[in-house]
């Protein structure tokens, strides 16, 4: 065996591997629902679509769902009965997510699994195996390389698949991943395959613009009152597309959905792009317009998180670029900010 942390998966074996996994795992993989490519629970190996790039929703939805029940309650005769859902026991596999999405999980891990451990997230996370699919053909909206990742990065993944045409090279990036390679579907990696994989990796990277974004920005973002913010955000609609589809945005709200004597406390995604995000009970809103809200989004991603968590709140997946209804491109915003003289 040339490497114990690598193997080969022949394409004709993919289906049987997935069917095998489906027996005792919840498998989430890219699958088509009409025109949409979504990361969702699959019922059959044939539902998996690995070739079509990144899914509309990011991998965060698997671990930090848009609506999560925290507990249910019932009030009867002066007594309140609270039912906390038991932690799920089923193991789950995120199969075929892209390296940007896998890398995004590292930030969520720091937020939800760090000093203040969030049981809802962590319970799911420890049962999750991340098998990502390297991007051999990154798209025009992709900029992972600029944020320290890459089209074939293994950050946040347990295993990374790389398409060689008739087979995948599979590389383990964690102990969990190494253990998984013991599955009999995998064959030993040969030197020729590894060399070919390396060549494809280099080609994918060289097809991308390597300009680094985060570093040049930090100093520039000291200037909160810069009039440039107004110009940069003039077209912003103030919707939540960028934040909801982002693999790292993790702000949430907690609210009750209640009937007369019963109810549920739920955690739902929230977005800094909405006026209600900061509106105070008096009616005063410290972030009254799209300008302040958009600035907050950039500041949080490129100034506050690098300071607090030592990583940017952006992995360069490009979803906010492709999905923004008015094509307000975060890459251009960052570039204009770092180029302009502070005022």
């Amino acid at each position, binding site marked *: 065996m040339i490497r114990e942390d690598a193997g080969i998966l022949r394409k004709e074996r993919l289906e049987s591997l997935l069917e095998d996994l489906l027996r005792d795992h919840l498998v989430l993989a890219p699958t088509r*629902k*009409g*025109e*949409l*490519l979504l990361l969702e629970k699959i019922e059959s190996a044939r539902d998996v679509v690995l070739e*079509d*790039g990144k899914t*509309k929703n990011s991998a965060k939805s698997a671990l930090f769902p*848009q*609506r999560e029940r925290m507990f249910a309650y019932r009030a009867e005769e002066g007594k309140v009965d609270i039912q906390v859902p038991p932690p799920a026991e089923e193991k789950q596999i995120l199969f075929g997510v892209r390296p940007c999405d896998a890398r995004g999980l590292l930030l969520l891990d720091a937020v939800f699994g760090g000093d203040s451990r969030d049981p809802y997230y962590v319970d799911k996370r420890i049962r999750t195996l991340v098998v990502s699919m390297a991007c051999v*053909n*990154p*798209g*025009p*909206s992709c900029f992972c390389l600029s944020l320290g990742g890459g089209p074939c990065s293994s950050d946040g993944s347990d295993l990374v698949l790389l398409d060689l045409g008739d087979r995948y090279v599979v590389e383990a990036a964690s102990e969990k991943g190494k253990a998984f390679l013991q599955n009999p579907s995998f064959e030993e990696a040969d030197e020729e395959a590894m060399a070919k994989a390396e060549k494809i990796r280099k080609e994918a990277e060289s*097809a991308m613009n390597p300009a680094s974004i985060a570093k040049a920005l930090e100093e520039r973002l000291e200037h909160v009152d810069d009039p440039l913010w107004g110009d940069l955000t*003039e*077209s912003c*609609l*103030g*919707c*939540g*597309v960028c934040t*909801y*589809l982002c693999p790292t945005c993790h702000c949430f*709200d907690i*609210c009750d*959905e209640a009937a007369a004597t019963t109810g549920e406390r*739920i955690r*739902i995604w929230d*977005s800094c792009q*909405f*006026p*209600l995000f900061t509106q105070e009970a008096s009616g005063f809103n410290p972030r009254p317009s799209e300008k302040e809200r958009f600035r907050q989004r950039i500041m949080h991603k490129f100034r506050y998180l690098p300071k607090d968590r030592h990583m940017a709140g952006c992995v360069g997946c490009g979803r906010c*670029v*492709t*999905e923004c*209804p*008015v*094509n*307000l*491109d975060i*890459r*251009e915003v960052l570039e204009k900010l770092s180029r302009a003289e502070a005022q």
Partner: protein
Amino acid sequence: MSQLTHEIREAARKLLRNKQAQLVIGFEEGSLPLRGRPCFIRKEEDVDRLVWTSFSDINVARYLAKRKEKVALVAKGCDSRALVELIKENQVSRDQVIIIGVPCEGMIDRPRIEAEVGHKAIVEVEETENRLTLKGRDFEKAFDRREFLYERCKACDHRNPVLYDVLVGQLVEEKVRESFPDVEAFTALDREKRWAYLAEETGKCIRCYACRNACPLCYCPECFVDTSQPQWVGKSTGLSDTLVFHLVRAFHLAGRCVACGACEQACPMGVDIRKLNRKLVKDVKDLFNYEAGVSLDEASPLATFCATDPDQFTVNP
């Protein structure tokens, strides 16, 4: 550069130079292939950013409300119709806007054309007359643009601006008479099927409000979904709340929606928002013989009263 692009730039240049307008709102090339986007031009030297392509597809009338300065708006048919409604609803004053009218031959349905090339990454687009050439890393494919228009554009009966101060290009022939085969097919379904369809479509919604925020006529200072006292509707993606959002929004746009499609185009999840809006467009037409955004003089049906208004919806005791 297309002739329309050239003429739009010249019109904008003249308006800014003569200080007739302080701001021109139009379209520019997007940062990705198949994308156009709104742009805001204040200086004469920036007018060359303006373009007219098959992707000048959002409704720019959305950017007019609450502006203080004199604005020139590059408006295709549906932008001008939205503007008519905004003027009638006293959100924009007619003398504050100079309309650069653009006859429109329809915009290209991006999701459909992306599906047509098998969702491969498109890196370059070339547009000449009616031919659209898409290039990817390992493919090149040419299309007749007329075959890939948005459904709403195929059904559009107001391709020419209904109101303008400056016209660029030549008026185009209005070939279509508005009809509602899609709405009729939907209403012919039995109740369970209609419910299943609405549940499936609104079930895709992620409550990002891109539809509402892209809509030129959704300008309420506080939307009913954002009211917290009282809270009319829940905030999660539970089906009943999501459905209430879409239904109430559709009702609120009755007699006002100009069928520009900004909502469905902005939706990242492909929710069929248009179906609901079109149903109400048809109802308003059938009940009040009114078409939104066509005339400045005709009173809005839900903002006026007429003794002969049909009232078959009232319940007899």
